[in-house]
């Protein structure tokens, strides 16, 4: 029953509740799909066939016993390799963690398991989530299912590519500056960055602690919302997690009524540097929302133009400290331990061999930015910019309920295109970074294909802290209206991957 892989998570759940399919069948169908296409897509770093089937069988047994199960019980999922799963190799895309099997589950994984969600395996990513294309992965680049010659976005390119290639209906990503939303936009899928603190970071291998946010990836708004609800909520293991009820994301995704919703188009996120096809689809989507009863105004966020430089000081600063623990002492790669080298030498040799170029670049940047004499000019100044950006948002939210922009300035670019130009690569995240700096909720929803290249365009919605539901409201409205035009969600327009050889 290969069409099981074409179903949404909500549909699969329905098939299982009505007894038309078992979790083992569904899981096996996705494992088969992975076996068939992942050689081309390369979304997975590790497929846990045995573990997934065992989880699926356990859910089927519970269902047969009449136990109460969560709405996504038995549905398979692809997990970004940056979250720990007990006993399953976890690398964060880095050689320095090759072979490491964490002795503990991240909170997200704990909640997935508690919800009966079946974890198929770990997906590829830029090393330590540093990148926008997966080209910085130590284990090779993931290919965009829409065009295998292009990157799928990053850092969570593996997760988004996996759902776009129908290898999984759901995936978990983490978003530090756009790592869920930009790959979502590039693969024609839904990617949500919850409010910072709305999902737990415990067990998320840190890139930048004050920015990292785990979140859901899916092919539909409702699926994303169901997954969001399964993983979100306060966690006593994460001091920065917010002790409040989860916003009503599922209800919002089911309702999708934007009548009377005040939408602000961010003036600064558009124009020069933005691909024409991206702008065209974005503005059509805004028109569509207007027709659905939303009140659209233009809003200025003057400090957004400083977001990128501020981000590239704060992120490397935190990362340089977070990555200091990879010292070859307790886990992961160890190079040069020949009995004569000192501990310092072994640490140094290991880091030299185990970290990729982009990781080293950011460690050096961050170390410099935190150095005494430079701290105020770099890290300190960046934190001030961060405050100003948060104020821009706060001021905007006095006028409107949500802000919108394109998710990315361009569509997916060709593999190798920007790998030697860090600044061009960094600019991918122009639209997504401000929300990470302010900690509020944001999401990307598919809004069509650009005329120039026939590649997906993402519609970016930003909502106030703990108003993640508003993102889903807009996403659901847009999705329904566009599906009417297209006869289905955007993903149905994706070209079939050549699976027979």
């Amino acid at each position, binding site marked *: 029953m290969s069409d099981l892989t074409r179903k949404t998570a909500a549909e699969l759940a329905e098939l299982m509740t009505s007894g038309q399919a078992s979790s083992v069948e569904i899981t096996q169908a996705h494992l088969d799909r992975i076996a068939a296409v992942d050689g081309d897509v390369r979304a997975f770093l590790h497929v846990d066939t045995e573990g997934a089937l065992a989880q699926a069988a356990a859910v089927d047994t519970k269902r047969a016993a009449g136990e109460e199960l969560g709405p996504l019980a038995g549905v398979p999922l692809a997990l970004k390799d940056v979250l720990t799963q007990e006993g399953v190799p976890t690398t964060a895309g880095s050689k320095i963690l090759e072979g490491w099997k*964490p002795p503990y589950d991240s909170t997200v994984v704990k909640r997935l398991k508690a919800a009966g969600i079946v974890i198929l395996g770990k997906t590829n990513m830029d090393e330590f989530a540093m990148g926008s294309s997966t080209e910085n992965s130590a284990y090779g680049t993931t290919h965009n299912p829409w065009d295998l010659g292009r990157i799928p976005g990053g850092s969570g390119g593996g997760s988004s590519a996996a759902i776009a290639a129908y290898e999984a209906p759901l995936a978990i990503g983490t978003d530090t500056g756009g790592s869920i939303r930009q790959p979502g936009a590039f693969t024609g899928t839904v990617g949500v960055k919850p409010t910072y603190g709305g999902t737990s970071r415990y067990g998320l291998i840190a890139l930048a602690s004050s920015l990292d946010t785990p979140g859901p990836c899916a092919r539909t708004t409702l699926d994303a919302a169901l997954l969001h609800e399964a993983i979100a909520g306060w966690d006593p293991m994460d001091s920065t997690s917010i002790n409040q009820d989860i916003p009503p994301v599922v209800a919002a995704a089911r309702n999708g009524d934007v009548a009377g919703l005040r939408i602000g188009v961010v003036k600064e996120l558009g124009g020069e540097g933005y691909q024409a096809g991206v702008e065209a689809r974005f503005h059509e989507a805004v028109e569509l929302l207007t027709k659905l009863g939303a009140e659209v105004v233009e809003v200025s966020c003057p400090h957004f133009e400083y977001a990128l430089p501020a981000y590239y000081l704060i992120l490397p600063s935190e990362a340089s400290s977070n990555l200091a623990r990879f010292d070859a002492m307790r886990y992961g790669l160890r190079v040069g331990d020949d009995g004569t080298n000192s501990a310092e030498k072994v640490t140094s040799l290991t880091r030299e061999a185990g970290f990729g170029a982009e990781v080293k670049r950011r460690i050096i940047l961050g170390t410099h930015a935190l*150095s005494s004499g430079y701290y105020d000019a770099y890290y300190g100044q960046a934190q001030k910019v961060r405050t100003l950006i948060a104020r821009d948002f706060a001021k905007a939210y006095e006028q409107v309920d949500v802000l919108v922009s394109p998710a990315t300035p361009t569509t997916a670019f060709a593999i190798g295109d920007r790998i030697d130009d860090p600044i061009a690569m960094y600019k991918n995240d122009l639209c997504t970074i401000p929300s990470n700096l302010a900690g509020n909720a944001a999401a990307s929803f598919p809004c069509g294909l650009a005329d120039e290249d026939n590649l997906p365009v993402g519609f970016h919605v930003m909502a106030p802290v703990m108003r993640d539901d508003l993102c889903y409201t807009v996403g659901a409205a847009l999705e329904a209206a566009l599906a009417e035009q297209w006869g289905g969600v955007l993903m149905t327009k994706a070209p079939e991957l050549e699976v027979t050889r």
Partner: protein
Amino acid sequence: MTAPVADVLEIDDALAQYDPVMGLEVHVELNTKSKMFCGCPTEFGAPPNTHTCPVCLGLPGALPVVNRRGVESAIKIGLALNCEIAEWCRFARKNYFYPDMPKNFQTSQYDEPIAFNGWTEVVVDGETYRIEIERAHMEEDTGKSTHVGGATGRIHGASHSLVDYNRAGIPLIEIVTKTIEVPGEKAAAVARAYVSMLRDLLLALGVSDVRMDQGSLRCDANVSLKPRGSSTLGTRTETKNVNSFRSVERAVTYEITRQAAILSSGGKVVQETRHWHEDTGITTSGREKSDAEDYRYFPEPDLVPVAPSREWVEELRATLPEAPSVRRARLQEEWGFTDLEMRDVINGNALEPIVATVELGVTPAAAKKWWLGELARSANESGQDLDALGVGPAEVAEVQKLVDEGTLNDKLARQVFEGLLAGEGTPAEIIEKRGLALVSDDSALLEAIDRAIAANPDVVEKVNSGKPAAAGALIGAVMKDMRGQADAAKVRQLLNAKLGI
């Protein structure tokens, strides 16, 4: 480069030329049940690496959560040292690489300590010295390295090192004084008195076991010299981990004499950390330390700020034990000691033992007699701290009880203490082994009296001729005959009856 091993000046010569300036940093391990940022137990002495978890091992993805009891203890310490308590403060990361530090940064506090601007007092030779407290801040301990294969137990020359992470993450409070400038000849004693006072204070607060032998109270002594009368500070050294009261005094004295020798011969003191050697009583060069040492501190993004409410602070203030100076005055009054007696008690570090002994039912005078007369004297002679003698309030009370019962007199009791100090067993065992019990058998005493009367006819003659006071000589003779093991009052009573006085 480190300075050549310096000769030392005599302390009097050193102080004739230079004024010492001190700064004391004391690390206190709190006695919370769990570690500062995770749930691992804190008991001392568990098998290596058994009190560890992903958090205190710094595993990828693990996050800290602040121990509320740790914060409470920090506030109590701050209040007891008359500090202001921050309304809002943060943890900071202190970044440096060391194999026993799991994250390669220490979670500490930097420019926002929880307690600051305090003061306290110590009494030395009847003089009260005020010591200004710069700050008291929260941090975590590191793991413990054991260097194997070298001659010194230090890393130099070792073939390998073992690391025990049980200690990693144990809550520490670092208490830092402002510079202490007291008359040179008092400096070392003031340093000792300060650490001793802190020990008593922390015990009274119940926040730490304050076992210097187990490292739960560790003192780093900063010492510099300036030419007499000058106001220009000299180069300081930091002698690390001085772990007994007496060592604090000795280490400060040693550094004064060492630095004076360097300066007086035209040399320069090297700014460095120094190791204290308990056995030889000297310090040796550790690592060179410059002010420019860059720990790249920045606010810990994994922890939310600590903002103790004023209500909570006041609640904690209300639980504080009485201030040491107030308590000393109260005890002196209650005990009926003269100023001079009280000064001896304080100088002998015998205040707390006497309090504990009095609580066991011993009169203050008797408690003072044993603690100062026997135990403090012995500690002084053997160069030990009073609490390291192995004789505590319980033993003192037991011996005094035997005196009160008439089993021992003071002279015999002294011999019991001698046996206790020599580790000969319990008081009962020592009395048995040494044959110390008083002879209470009347017939034995009467025989001795008869012998005394027979041997001293002239004294008997005097008594019979109306000089009863002369009987004292007969009592002395009887006591001598009984080798002191008789109750003199009893002898007098029997003798008086015999002579018809």
